């Protein structure tokens, strides 16, 4: 089956809801309306009011009620409409979802999956285009997963739903409908700590995730014949697959990290620290970062100047190669 990202996530939800009656969706406009991105289209019709719950307009309510449901043995899969509105949820994620195991000394845990349409590039209004992965990876007790295409989205979402810890699932909204891939109808899972080597190479390692994968691949294609570039797609940001990263950097001796979020304290900083810890002496050049700037995400007229593009990525690769 050729599916786009919206369809593959929809399929994963449908199959998991069929398999496990405890899987319940909550969110704003996810029922009859099928969600603002149509990710839950048809699920309310199939599963009804008790499985696909249109909530009042309150993000803190959505996450905290989900935490309660998860403690009581259900598998809530709440949706937040846009990334910018997930920020008030940080309190509940940090203080409760991520530490209920600790707070109850192992008696309770919080198996929920918070789905967050993530990142910019869709010409949306203010607060609809943020990249917040570093906020989530900084929370102890939470896993952070981000697919980059229809195939891995399905396998990762199924794994996330079956995981016994809270997972924040960042969906790159910019490519919701931009990529179609073969997605098996049959069940499969992708482990939540495994990065993918998208393309092997020997000169430089480029690390990216989510919507940036597509842009990185386009950029690297332009360098074909000039440099042998290895591309890593992290898929899970926490816990991250450090072995794949370190093995790759030890082989190439050079690395470029690409993300859309602002530079300072971005997730790239963590990756570079990890590389410095475990592969510093293998490096031929300082690790480069291509990121957003330390400014609020611009409105659509300027957002394309903010989001890393092919030119900036290739300039970083050239710089690292010529160091």
């Amino acid at each position: 089956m050729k599916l786009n990202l919206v369809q593959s996530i929809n399929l994963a939800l449908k199959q998991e809801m069929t398999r496990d009656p405890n899987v319940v969706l909550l969110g704003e406009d996810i029922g009859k309306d099928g969600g603002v991105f149509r990710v839950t289209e048809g699920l309310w019709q199939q599963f009804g009011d008790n499985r696909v719950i249109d909530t009042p307009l309150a993000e803190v309510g959505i996450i905290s009620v989900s935490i309660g449901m998860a403690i009581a043995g259900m598998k809530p899969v709440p949706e937040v409409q846009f990334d910018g509105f997930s920020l008030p949820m940080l309190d509940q994620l940090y203080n409760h979802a991520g530490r209920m195991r600790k707070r109850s000394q192992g008696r309770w845990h919080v198996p929920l999956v918070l789905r967050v349409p993530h990142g910019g590039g869709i010409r949306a209004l203010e607060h609809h285009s943020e990249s917040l992965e570093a906020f989530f990876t900084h929370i102890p007790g939470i896993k952070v997963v981000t697919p980059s295409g229809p195939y891995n989205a399905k396998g990762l979402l199924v794994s996330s739903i079956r995981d016994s810890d809270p997972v924040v699932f960042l969906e790159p909204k910019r490519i919701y409908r931009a990529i179609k891939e073969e997605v098996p109808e049959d069940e499969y899972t992708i482990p939540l700590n495994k990065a993918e080597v998208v393309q092997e190479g020997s000169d430089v390692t480029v690390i990216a995730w989510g919507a940036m994968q597509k842009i990185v691949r386009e950029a690297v294609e332009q360098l074909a014949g000039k440099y042998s570039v290895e591309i890593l797609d992290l898929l899970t940001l926490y816990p991250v697959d450090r072995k794949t990263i370190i093995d790759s950097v030890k082989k190439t001796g050079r690395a470029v990290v690409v993300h859309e979020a602002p530079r300072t304290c971005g997730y790239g900083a963590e990756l570079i620290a990890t590389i410095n810890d475990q592969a510093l002496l293998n490096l031929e050049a300082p690790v480069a970062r291509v990121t957003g700037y330390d400014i609020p995400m611009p409105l659509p007229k300027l957002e394309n100047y903010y989001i890393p593009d092919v030119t900036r990525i290739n300039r970083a690769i050239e710089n690292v190669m010529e160091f």
Partner: protein
Amino acid sequence: MPKKEMNIDLEIFQILNEDGRIANTREMPQLKDDDIKRMYESMVLARVFDDIALKLQREGRMLTYASLMGQEASQIGSALALEDEDWFVPSYRENGVFITRGFPMETLYLYWAGDERGMKIPDGMNALPVSIPVGSQVPHAVGIALANKLTEKKSVAVVYFGDGATSKGDFHEGLDFAGVFQVPCVFICQNNQWAISVPVKKQTAAETIAQKAIAYGIDGARVDGNDVFAVYKVVKGAIEKARVGKGPTLIECYTYRMENHTTADDWKKYRDPSEVEWWKHRDPIERLKKYMEDEGIWNEAYDKEVWDNAKAQVSEAVKKFESVPPPSPLDMFTNIYEELPPEIEEQRKDFE
């Protein structure tokens, strides 16, 4: 029964009924013919602005747009009750209030076209920019009102939000603080029956939004939001009460969103067309027009003049909007801090 005597009426307060007749002569505010004409002309202007916004959006000249069609009486009736020094704290649907308060229409168009320069509040105007995160602006108005109280200013803060926003913690916390500190703040909930696809009865189990005031110990009122006289009267009363230190009021304007939520939405997925049809007969502009005609202050010639004039103003605004050159990419780096820190300065250089 609450111990303290509170002023809450859960009946829908109406002055001008659906047929354009005065249902409640005693309550009719003292308005000169020119005041009434101003109401009508402002509502027509808002409708034309709205219409053209939707057209520009369809043509791809704007990103998206949140229409106020059907809510003109709530917006214009309330906007005209504010004094110049009063604060206006909007959500994203208050284009009618913005315009009535004299905010440049071309600037609003710029905002909806995704241009940051559209967020610029003119000097001397006490207003906050459009607030997209639903309900988040409610406590800001309370803070402004508290500051006005502590610094003994006579200005009142008026905040707008939708029915959906009443589910947010921000709404609760804002009203709670307002009650505790007895601030000069007026809360205007435009209950347009829908929050995107979610009807108000799924937003709250309470029968009305106005009654929520009881729990915060503040006054509440429920107004026919398609009756410009009723809205004007109740909002004016609440503002003047707040101004003399007699505390905040929650006002529920009972109205209807005639259009899609925004241009990205399709109401046919979740609303019954007969419901929309029912509200069409309660159009706030038509209602006022009937009244004015009966009073002899409306005729065809006047009407043509009003609409032509509104269209001319809006097309002038569209012209200005379209002649604005594209923003400089370097604008991204402005208005972040008073002084740009070295980190961003370096990033800006790198960008160039």
